Structures are given as structure tokens and as C-alpha cells.
């Protein structure tokens, strides 16, 4: 996170992590497509070979915010291929929140786990603990055959702390939901650490509504945040609203 007090701008770094070919770039493309051109910059794709990410993709999003504090979101993807380990490490450095894009196919179970351990290791090496990092998980490619069942994922999701989303990134399904879940978690974590809402008289609900709107989401915030498997975030959101 970077806070520019003069320009009253907050810059947040979000990173899409995951195994090779799980659909990270596709998620970013879908976000870019969904976003209102006024809030979204160009999608920058840095060096690709055969459509595989070599360095990273970067989507800049800008929102007005409230209380005179504007919010810039820089959304990155890492290259998933195993050999780009050092690039992943560079990109994930300084991330405020991470979306882990997993491949739903049963055949990819080990690759998902390996990539997750790689994330854990890289976060650790940058001096953080994964536990302290806002994290959401997306099981992408729900349209493919031989995928892990929804019941199984729901059961596993209930055991972990991270909200789990289901998606078909190529059709844009679940993409905005995943992103909003990540933004919500990241914002609450940054707020807890920096007291942003109070300091800037910031209305986080208004920001979330603005972002959802600019991403073309029609439903309510409760609905949106409740759309993870098991709906954990929706409940947390209601509790947070009641409490604060």
C-alpha cells in the first residue's frame, strides 16, 4: 500500500497467483472487459510467449472513493510456470492481497498444492506470513469435465479461513465476485492496520459499491460478498456493518 497524503491517493497492490495455465491472465482480461473505461486503464501485458505470461500482467483501476481519498488498484498476475520462480517472487513483493487462482480439474490437484506452497514460501521470504495476508481462493474452469465436486470444495472451504469462489473466467463468471472478495478482505486488513476509515472519514461501503458498480455488478453488496462457497464473507460483512 502507498498513501500519498498530498495527492490524497491510496495505491493498493493486488496479486493473482496460481499454477501455470489456471486462468490468472484470463481473470484479468475479464475484469478489464467488465470495467467501466473511465475507471480502468489499459491492460498491460508484459512479455508473453505463446500466450504464457513471462513477467506479469497489470491492470490499473482508479476509483473516486470518499472523504477526498481516491483509490488506485494495481492488479497483477504472476507467471505460473515453475521456471519463473524469481519473477513470481519479485511480483508478489509488497502485495496487499492475493487471489489464488486454482484449476478445478482433479488432474491439477497437485499443481495447485505446489503453487500454493510456492506462494507461501515467497511470501515468507519477503518477510511476511501468509496468515497475515488477505487471501481468497478461486477454483476456475468449472466448465471443464473431471473437476473436483462442489460438495468436496464446500467441505474443504468450511475448514479453511480463506473464502473460496467458483469461476469460469473465460465466460467472466465468478471473476468480479472473486475480485470483490479480495478487495473487501484487503480493505479491512489495511483499515485495521492504518485506521483508514477513521483517518479519512472514509466510507468503505461506498467504495465497495462504487467498485462493484464500475465492474458492472447489478446486485446488492450483501449478495456479492455472500457469493463465495458457504458465503462466509457475506456474514462477516453483515457483522462488521452492525458492529461499526
Amino acid at each position, binding site marked *: 500500500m502507498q498513501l*500519498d497524503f498530498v495527492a490524497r491517493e491510496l*495505491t493498493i497492490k493486488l496479486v493473482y497467483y496460481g499454477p501455470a495455465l489456471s486462468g490468472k491472465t484470463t481473470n484479468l482480461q475479464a475484469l478489464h472487459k467488465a470495467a467501466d473505461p473511465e475507471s480502468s486503464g489499459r491492460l498491460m501485458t508484459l*512479455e508473453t510467449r505463446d500466450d504464457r505470461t513471462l*513477467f506479469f500482467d497489470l491492470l*490499473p483501476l482508479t476509483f473516486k472513493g470518499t472523504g477526498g481519498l481516491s483509490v488506485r488498484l494495481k492488479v497483477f498476475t504472476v507467471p505460473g510456470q515453475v521456471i519463473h520462480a524469481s519473477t513470481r517472487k519479485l511480483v508478489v*513483493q*509488497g502485495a496487499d492481497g492475493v487471489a489464488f487462482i486454482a484449476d478445478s480439474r482433479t488432474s491439477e490437484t497437485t499443481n495447485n498444492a505446489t503453487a500454493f506452497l510456492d506462494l507461501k514460501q515467497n511470501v515468507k521470504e519477503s518477510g511476511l506470513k501468509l496468515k497475515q495476508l488477505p487471501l481468497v481462493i478461486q477454483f476456475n474452469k468449472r466448465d471443464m469435465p473431471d473437476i473436483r465436486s462442489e460438495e468436496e470444495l464446500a467441505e474443504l472451504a468450511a475448514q479453511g479461513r480463506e473464502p473460496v469462489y467458483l469461476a469460469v473466467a473465460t465466460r467472466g463468471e465468478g471473476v468480479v465476485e472473486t475480485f470483490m472478495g479480495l478487495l473487501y478482505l484487503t480493505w479491512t486488513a489495511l483499515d485495521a492496520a492504518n485506521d483508514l476509515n477513521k483517518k479519512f472519514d472514509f466510507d468503505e461501503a461506498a467504495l465497495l459499491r462504487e467498485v462493484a458498480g464500475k465492474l458492472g455488478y447489478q446486485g446488492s453488496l450483501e449478495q456479492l460478498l455472500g457469493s463465495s462457497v458457504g458465503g462466509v464473507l457475506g456474514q462477516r460483512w453483515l457483522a462488521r456493518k452492525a458492529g461499526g
Partner: protein
Amino acid sequence: MSDVTQRLEELTLGTRLRLEELIPRESLVDLTASYHELFGVPLKVFDGSGKLLAEAGPAPSLYVWLASLRGARAALEYVVDHVKQLDPGAGDVSYPCVTGASYRVSAIQYEGRRLGRVIFGPYLGAVPAEVPPELLLAEPDLDPARALALLAEMPRAREETITQVVAHLRRGLEIILFSGHKALLTSNMHLASVKESFKELQAKNQSLQEAFDRLKELDRLKSNFLATVSHELRTPLTSIIGYSEMLHEGLAGELTGEQRDFVGTIKEKGEQLLELIKGLLDLSKLESGTMSLRKSELSIAETLNEVGSTLAPAARKKNVALSVQVSAGLPRLWGDAERLRQVFLNLTENALKFTPVGGSVTLSATATELAATATEDEEDDDGAVFFAAKRPALQVRVTDTGIGIPEAERSKVFDAFYQVDGSSTREAGGTGLGLSIVKRLVDGHDGTISIESNEPQGTVFVITLPLQRAGQR
């Protein structure tokens, strides 16, 4: 955080981007020139701090003339000052001049941040019928005819046109800035990932070096341990052999036949054990580099003959012919006579051991040369002129007609305790220390040792020893 990663973070988060970094200055100059060429209106580009980066189009002659008139110049300076301070927000604004012309100021925006400004003008919408009153106010003595003539020569553009041109330029610049940003990010990313990989490699090298040092230390400890233990074993063993010898010779009273046999076996096994321990001791001394060679001038013929006569009884017993052939007039060698005898004793023992009844073993010595460079590759004579000439040397060949050593085993037999597997070898006994000691002793004389086949049957060990004398090296 290193400079490289810090810079990368600034670049990716888009904080502190500078116009000049994203567009090379020459490109900006070309761009402004082409806009001026197309629309005929002068324009200037400034960076975020107000520094002029590029301009195109000369000052209109009206302005050059007015600048020479005191009142008009003051009025123009006032306008220019204002134009420079104008805040176009994220879009563009225009500003009127006393001449009736306009300036248009536009922000150069990238990712919602202002990186600089473009100023178009002055340009005139339409030629006025008379001199504008503001101009006359600033310069009451103005020559109206000249002013009108020069006004007619002013660059002309309608406000709507300028609005379109500005929008067009902004869009173009946005694309150029995006590509510039991308190129900058790419090169920085390259740099950072090379640095990152280098860091990782360095860490790996470091841990390898540490592991290597630890192993070397362990190896040294092992050699020390071996030396100490074998030395300590030798003393009591010498007593055991001595006492069993005395018993055997009846010095402590007559023994029965069976008792004598038993004591004889104890003595024999004790001597075998002593040989083994001596070998270990030699090896550990050689490994730790603490074995000092006592070199002097010696005759290879003498050494080989001694070996021949020492082993003649064993050869006779096994019914293997043993001969020594030394060419006449061989030069004398500089070396440790005792250790060299050990070398050829070991090799000849092996030859006898692995040669069946009826075979033959030959020791021969001839003069030869040894390449001065350490290379054993005879093909490698590239740049031979740079290296010292070949050194004179002696070659000794220990040839047998025994079981031979397969090609693949030839480099391994010099390892300690290595023995070629096969029932015939195992029957032969031994511990596999002999050749490892031989190899190290030959090394200690700067010589080489290699194995060849003896056609049609058997082995040849070829030892080459340089003739170097004291003072030559």
C-alpha cells in the same frame, strides 16, 4: 530493499513516473514538429516541473515586432506568465492574448496523473478588421497599419479545430506513454529478475562452498585418524610378532608339532596385519601430504634389479618367468630410491599375483620424454609454442601375461581398497591398497602412471618419471 526492486515498485505502482522517462525527448521533438507542420500552430511541451522539453513553430512576426515595443512587451509577458501557470485540470483550457489570439493549455495525463502540459498558440480565430483595443491600450503609439498587416500573417485556427487537435494529441500521447511505460517496466523487470537469479545462485554457491569446506575438513580428520590409529596399532603388533617368533623358535621351551603350527599361523597373520597397517599409514601420510620424499640421484637399473631379486623366489615358486631389461646408458633419475622401489615392488607383486603358472613378467626401462604441461591428452598441442619444451624422462613398463584389466576398470584400480570384481581376483587376496599408494608416490615424483593391454593377454603398467635434478625446478 535494493535500488532495483525499489525502482520496480515505483514503476509498477506508477508513482513518480516522469514524462521524459516514458517518451524519449527526440520523439517529443519530432511529434511536436509534425503537429506544427500539420496545423500550422506553434506548440510547446513542458514536463511536470515546468521544464520545456520540446517546441515547434517560430514566434509569429507580430509577436517579434511587439516584443521590441515597451508597452506591448510588458503586456505579452503578463499573458505568457499567466498561461504558464494555468491549471488545465485533467483536460484543457484556453486563454486570450491582448492581440486577440489565444493560447490553449492541455494536461498530459497518464493513469490519472499529470505528467506535463502542452501549450498551443498563439493562434488567431479570424483576422480582425481593426487593431484590438487591449493592444492599443498597452501600446498607444502602435502603428495600426503594420499591426493589421502582421495580424493577417498570424497562425490561424478555429477553437473547435484546436479542441479536436488537442484531444487527438492527448490520445496519441496516452498510447505512446503506455508503450513507454511498458518498455521501461520490461527492461527493469529483466534487470530485477537477473539480479534475483544471481542472488539465488550466489546463495547456492555459498552453501556448496561451505559443504565442500566441511568435507575437506572431515577428510583431513579421517587421514589424521588413520595415521594415528595405524601408528598406535603397529607398536603392540610388532611385539606380538616378536614374541610369537621367539615361541616359534623354541626360546621359551620346546613346542609340540601342533603348537608350533599354531604359533606359526599367529606369526604369519600378524605379519599380514602389519603389512596392511603399514600400507594404511603410507596412504594416510600420502593423502595428508606429510610423507616427505627423500630424493637423491639414483639408477633405475639398480632399483629394478633389486625388485627382481627380491621377488625372484616368489616367481620361481609360482613358476612364472621374471626378467628385468634396462637399456644401456640410461640417465640417472632424481627421486626417492626407497619409495620408487616400493612402487615397482607393488607393481611386480601384482603382476605375479595375477599371472597364472607358466606366464611371464618383465620389467623394462627406456628413455623417453614427458610433456611439460600437465596434459595427458596427446592431441592437445594447441599453442605448444607457449609452453615449455618436453622434459626428458624415463619410462618403466611392468608387463605381464596375466588376467588383464578391463578398459572400464583401469581408472578405478588406483582408488584405495578397489579391486576388480571376479572370483579369480578374490582368490588372489590382498586389500586393494597397493595401487593407490603407487599412484600417489608416482604423483609425488611428478610422474604419470597408466595401464595398457598386453596383447594378446595380460597387463602393462606404464610409469613415466621426469629426470629433473635438484635446482631445475
